[in-house]
């Protein structure tokens, strides 16, 4: 949606409403390849209840999904499949890297493993951990919700979070 430079009161309210609606109706595509899937299932089940955030409805078709959850190690053989799934999703779409293998490759550094899915597609939220606790997943999901809300209020994707200075030294 293209936004005018100085949106009026009505359109800005409308976009806030659209962002609010979008962030509470996340249709996710779980691309589950490895052991992180167990933690993903734990998050999805009633104890942690991902449905509280409106994300309890996995769609197993990329054309019906908003968020691509990449859960587990991605090998070079699997990478073109994942890229194709991502290309098949309709805009607006978001990508969550679930687990440290999808974020950076994790403890794999070998001939077979992709060293982080951000080498082949843009990633919105990284959830590290081996595997991440369900609390971390929910935290990542809330960060994604904030991002979705902010995106449609301003009309463009917000810049990535700035790393604290202490981590850069």
């Amino acid at each position, binding site marked *: 949606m293209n936004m005018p430079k100085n949106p009026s009161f009505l359109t800005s309210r409308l976009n806030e409403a659209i962002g609010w609606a979008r962030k509470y109706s996340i249709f996710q595509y779980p691309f589950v390849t490895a052991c992180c899937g167990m933690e993903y299932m734990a998050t999805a089940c009633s104890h942690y209840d991902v449905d509280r955030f409106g994300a309890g409805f996995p769609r197993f078709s990329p054309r019906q999904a908003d968020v691509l959850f990449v859960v587990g190690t991605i090998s*070079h*053989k699997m*990478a*073109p499949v994942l*890229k194709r799934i991502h290309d098949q999703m309709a805009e607006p779409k978001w990508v969550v890297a679930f687990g440290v293998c999808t974020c950076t*490759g994790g403890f794999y*550094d*070998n*001939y*077979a493993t*992709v*060293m*982080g899915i951000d*080498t*082949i597609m843009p990633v919105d939220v990284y959830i590290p951990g081996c595997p991440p606790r369900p609390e971390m997943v929910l935290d990542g999901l809330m960060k994604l919700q904030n991002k979705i809300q902010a995106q449609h209020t301003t009309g463009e994707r917000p810049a990535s979070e700035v790393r604290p200075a202490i981590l850069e030294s």
Partner: protein
Amino acid sequence: MNNSSLIESVTARFPGAVKASHAWRGDATMVLRGEFLLEVARYLKEDPALQMNFLMDLSAVDYSTFGKKPAPAFFASSGVALKPSSQIPDEDPWPGPPDRSRFAVVYHFFSMAHKHRLRLVVPVEEAPDGTVEGTVGRVDSLTDLWPGANWLEREVWDMFGIGFRGHPDLKRILMYEGFEGHPLRKDYPVNKRQPLIGPVN
């Protein structure tokens, strides 16, 4: 049939086929000449006293760096802590390679009927040009006897580049078509990356 009588029965039936054997702590192992593999395997499967009807595992070993001191640079990029080379003995530790050959293909058999196990080791020579590849193959395929050997032999081909004579469809199974080299060989560069898409990371 216990371990030593298993070995004895094969040795008596095929004199000259068994290069070496041991039955230490309950695992009967025979090092076999490659040209006898099919005959011995058929005997193991079809003899009523043996009935090795289950091929549990089929894999291979690359002995090219066995017992040698690793170069310090080998693990330098991976962050793996390395023993000082003074602590690593020069001579091969027991049991050592079965042969002077570079590779060995290892078969594990089990008999559902008699509950006994046997391990066969077949040394595979490296060709003079430094390869063991090729459509002809260096080892006889066991797919006619145990259909389950099909994918296991494809995996050995994929990871080690050892060809199997008579295999119906010998192609890569874990790596993709177009992958160069065989990654479990000891001379495959530890840092070599060949992704299908994306940057070389």
